[in-house]
């Protein structure tokens, strides 16, 4: 047999070619051990079972779940022999296996993102009261989506809704959801809110909503986000990152939209209230006019009575000064024969004639003595 002599490098290349041919990708399940991140870039861990272990490698940005020694995972990886003769699996996809692992990863990720402040109340934005332009991120085949569209349509008719049809579970879901958020963030025409919804499912089904990519997309969304995942268990990390959390897709529709019938009734009530206020104003005005007229009338009568009394007083005084009155009371007017009124004794001489006017005639008298 012809034995080719290879250099070490050539052997390593040949082995890698063979591996590439035989196992372009393998899927393995095992337990994480010796997990470490080097220089914030390179992730190394061993994947092991009871009898064996194999080294794994990946870049940190590909790792979107929190890993810890002891967790059970499933990887899709490409085997290779490194230049230094080390056998390693380059991980292309990683999934948590079993509720225990899922729960643990959830807790770790939650702690990490809470520390970053992603879930803090200050970050939460309010929803618009009258939504006009909405983006929905969901799977159009899913029951949750239909429930949302139906209820939103019943409650409100003033919206334009753009729907990004994506997978809401499975391996490809996180990238698709993140891509949908990207699309809406960059759209020319702004949106009033985005709605991320899906129906209920197992902890495993909901994994995409705990994926770091999705959680960061929700937290970093340009527009307020409502997350509505229908489930009875605890919240997902996407729920925590949302501006508003709905308990189900239907609840998301209720939160987002006002009720058109309530609105219509409100308009009716406001109109009636305006009419009754107007009637009230008119009644008040009429009453106040009546009152004013009344007081004007009273004023006039009062004045007349008072004036009359004044007049009577004046007339009485005039009467008192009336010469005819005085004469009738015994006062007389004395005048000389020339007709000049005698006011003083020096006005007449003895023997002179003096006329005395009484009420019923005139006396002719003569001065006897002065």
């Amino acid at each position, binding site marked *: 047999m012809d034995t080719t002599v290879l250099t070490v490098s050539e052997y390593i290349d040949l082995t890698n070619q063979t591996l590439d041919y035989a196992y372009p990708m393998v899927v393995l399940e095992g337990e994480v051990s010796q997990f470490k991140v080097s220089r914030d870039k390179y992730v190394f861990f061993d994947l092991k079972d009871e009898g064996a272990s194999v080294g794994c490698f990946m870049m940190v940005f590909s790792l979107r779940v929190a890993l810890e020694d002891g967790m059970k995972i499933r990887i899709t990886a490409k085997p290779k022999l490194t230049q230094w003769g080390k056998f390693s699996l380059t991980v292309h996809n990683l999934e948590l296996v079993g509720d225990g692992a899922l729960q643990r990863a959830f807790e770790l990720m939650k702690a990490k993102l809470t520390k970053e402040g992603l879930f803090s109340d200050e970050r939460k934005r309010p929803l618009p009261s009258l939504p006009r332009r909405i983006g929905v991120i969901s799977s159009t085949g899913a029951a949750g989506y239909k429930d949302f569209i139906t209820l939103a349509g019943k409650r409100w*008719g*003033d919206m334009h809704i*753009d*729907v990004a049809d994506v997978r809401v579970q499975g391996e490809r879901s996180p990238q698709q959801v993140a891509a949908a958020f990207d699309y809406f963030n960059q759209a020319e025409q702004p949106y009033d809110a985005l709605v991320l919804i899906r129906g209920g499912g197992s902890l495993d089904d909901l994994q995409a909503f705990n994926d770091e990519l999705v959680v960061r997309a929700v937290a970093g969304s340009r527009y307020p986000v409502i997350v509505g995942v229908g489930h009875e268990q605890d919240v997902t990390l996407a729920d925590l990152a949302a501006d508003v959390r709905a308990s189900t897709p239907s609840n998301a529709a209720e939160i987002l939209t006002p009720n058109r019938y309530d*609105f*219509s009734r409100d308009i009716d009530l406001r109109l009636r209230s*305006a009419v009754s206020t*107007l009637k009230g104003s008119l009644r008040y005005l009429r009453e106040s006019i009546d009152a004013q007229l009344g007081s004007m009338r009273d004023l006039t009568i009062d004045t007349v009575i008072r004036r009359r009394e004044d007049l009577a007083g004046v007339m009485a005084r005039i009467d008192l000064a009336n010469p005819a009155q005085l004469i009738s009371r015994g006062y007389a007017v004395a005048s000389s024969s020339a007709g000049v009124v005698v006011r003083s004794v020096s006005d007449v001489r003895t023997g002179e004639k003096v006329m005395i006017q009484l009420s019923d005639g005139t006396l002719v008298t003569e001065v006897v003595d002065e």
Partner: protein
Amino acid sequence: MSKKTEQLDFAKEYDKLKKLLEWFESEDIDLAAAPKKYKEAQALAKKLQEYLDNAENSISVLDKDFDS
């Protein structure tokens, strides 16, 4: 996907109605102007209520593959 009614600027029109109706509550309203203002409010309210009754959301599924 079709809409029976044109999309109104509902928020703006509703605001207009609210302001009109607030006028009736003010202290010294010009009673001479009241009948005309009321007719205006009534017409606007009717327009809004009709829109509320009949409008339907327009839904458009984006023609885009998000699987990059």
